[in-house]
């Protein structure tokens, strides 16, 4: 195979040379290089960003060790840590999984398998597309008015419950859209076979369509959780804590969920605004701590992202063969 392709390539180059009169297509090469440069600029920024953050974060992990991960927010950079942020972000991710996954996947199934092409369906679809484009800070207003104020008896006001529900709604359209896309890619023969042996629509969907579409759906949902983990703007409006946060010992889980909270991106936002004075003991500044906090957040987000991308690539390869 390698031989035939090399023969094909060499004959192509001979043809190309005779067509162009043996001249090199300089303009075309410049054009291609410029295009590549566009892509590389984006990559370069990514590299600089990661390198800069990691380089500054290393001393923090060296001097503070795991203490940085297990200590709470504090006013001194010698003591401050991100444990409350990790807890808050994980609770938010749990809310997304519990609320947005079932609702989003069910909505996607409805739109692709059940909905007839009526005006109502078209309206729902248009609505979901527009909802996906609503700025996250506007979802923060929704969270503030509905979940912080109106549902205060349940959520406890400015709490991680309000934050979790708001972010679940924020990523809901993404999950619906990716679910619908993966279900649309399921070959019709599968459905026809299901109906042919007497399956109802739900049985066919559950036993044949959903398993086939599962990797695609899973990819979409992982990306949605990653998005929720990194989202900060709605949490600012809901009232996540940026300064100091005392968590009194002996709280029940419900009290913790209904109490004041913070999350990783909010800690990063708060520390970015801190005065840059080195701590007396460790000599670390909040800027250093912030780089370490970013590393923690990026690990959480990028692990999910990378898993989603790998899953999709593997799955695409399997389908092609």
């Amino acid at each position, binding site marked *: 195979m390698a031989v035939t392709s090399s023969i094909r390539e060499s004959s192509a180059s001979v043809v190309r040379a005779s067509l162009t009169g043996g001249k090199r297509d300089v303009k075309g090469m410049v054009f291609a290089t410029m295009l590549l440069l566009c*892509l590389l600029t*984006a990559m370069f920024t990514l590299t600089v*960003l990661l390198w800069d*953050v990691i380089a500054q974060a290393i001393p923090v992990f060296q001097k503070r060790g795991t203490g940085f991960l297990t200590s709470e927010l504090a006013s001194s950079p010698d003591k401050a840590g991100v444990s409350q942020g990790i807890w808050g972000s994980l609770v938010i991710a749990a809310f997304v999984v519990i609320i947005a996954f079932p609702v989003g996947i069910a*909505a996607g199934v409805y739109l692709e398998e059940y909905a007839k092409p009526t005006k109502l369906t078209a309206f729902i679809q248009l609505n979901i597309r527009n909802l996906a484009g609503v700025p996250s800070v*506007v979802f923060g207003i*929704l969270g503030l008015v509905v979940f912080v104020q109106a549902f205060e008896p349940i959520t406890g006001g400015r709490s991680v419950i309000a934050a979790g529900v708001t972010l679940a709604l924020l990523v*809901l359209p993404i999950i619906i859209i990716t679910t619908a896309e993966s279900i649309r890619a399921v070959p019709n023969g599968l459905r026809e076979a299901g109906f042919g042996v007497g399956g109802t629509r739900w*049985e066919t969907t559950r036993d044949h369509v959903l398993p086939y579409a599962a990797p695609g759906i899973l990819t979409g949902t992982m990306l949605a959780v990653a998005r929720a983990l990194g989202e900060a703007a709605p949490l600012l409006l809901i009232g996540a804590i940026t300064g100091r946060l005392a968590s009194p010992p002996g709280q029940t889980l419900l009290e913790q969920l209904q109490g004041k909270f913070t999350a990783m991106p909010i800690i990063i936002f708060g520390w970015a605004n801190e005065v840059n004075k080195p701590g007396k003991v460790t000599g670390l500044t909040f800027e250093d701590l912030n780089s370490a906090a970013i590393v923690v957040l*990026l690990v959480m987000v990028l692990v999910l992202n990378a898993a989603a991308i790998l899953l999709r690539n593997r799955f695409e390869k399997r389908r092609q063969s």
Partner: protein
Amino acid sequence: MQPSLSPRSPMLTVGDFRGNPRRMRRERTMRVLLFGAAATSIVVSALIIGTLFTEAWQFLRELSDTIGLGALIDSGEAPGWYPRQGRFDIPTIVIGTLIVSMVSVAVSAPLGLGAAVYLSEYAGPRARKWLKPMLEVLAGIPSVVFGFFALRVLGPDLIQPLFGTTQPTSLLVTGVAIGILVTPLMASISEDALSSVPSLLREASVGLGARKSTTTLKVVLPAAVSGIVAALIISVSRAIGETMVAALASGRLGSAPRELDPREPGLPMTSAMAQLAQGSDQLVGIGPAFQSLFFVGAVLFVMTLALNILADRVVARVRNKY
């Protein structure tokens, strides 16, 4: 079974096609549940629109009862957004947003489109296998991280020496950082548009003896132009709504004079909102300063919605074409 039928001639009846009642009931329940899930999205939209506009309306009423609606457009000597002084100059923050989104498009449009053309027309399968995931990683980086990066590196180390800005934070830095943030989005939508151009068009062009660059510029790009326009609109919409970068890197805390120079610090709408929400730890709903948050939110919502609907229309046109 009909009693008149003799047992020796097994004929099928309507009843046999009715199916198992339990399964049919299950089927109906599932349909209702799934429809309920789909309808949730409408409830969410209704809630967003409802809360935004009731609260914004309340702000306007409160304002007209106290200091008058004239506060929305500051006509004083030095107009600006000073919510705590009762000066809510909407043009200040809208101009801030427009400057930031224009700068960001100036960054994301060439970078994103260039990357998309390279990925779709030039990159071999092996290169694409590596480059695309990297672009997706860039897309996955949270915006607050970009804000910190803009504040710490992009502003002081690149934009300030390059453009001679007075401060490390400015509307320009914000715009550039948001531009980089939006580039993967721009690239991915444009690439979809480019790869949906039928390869017959490319083959015809190459068959006529056109060079690859000519084919790309004169055949593929024009054929994909609607999709690329849609990508541009969506990028602008995203840039307008981007909050964390603006809140960290635009350089004003809570109030700002009206500023037309991108090299100066300014206050985009989203940044104003973040700081209204954050700075006032007072009880929600007290004072027009806090309430103005909802009005700004409503304006922001209308702007992005208009752009998104426009993009949707453009995309629908592409889909009809091929």
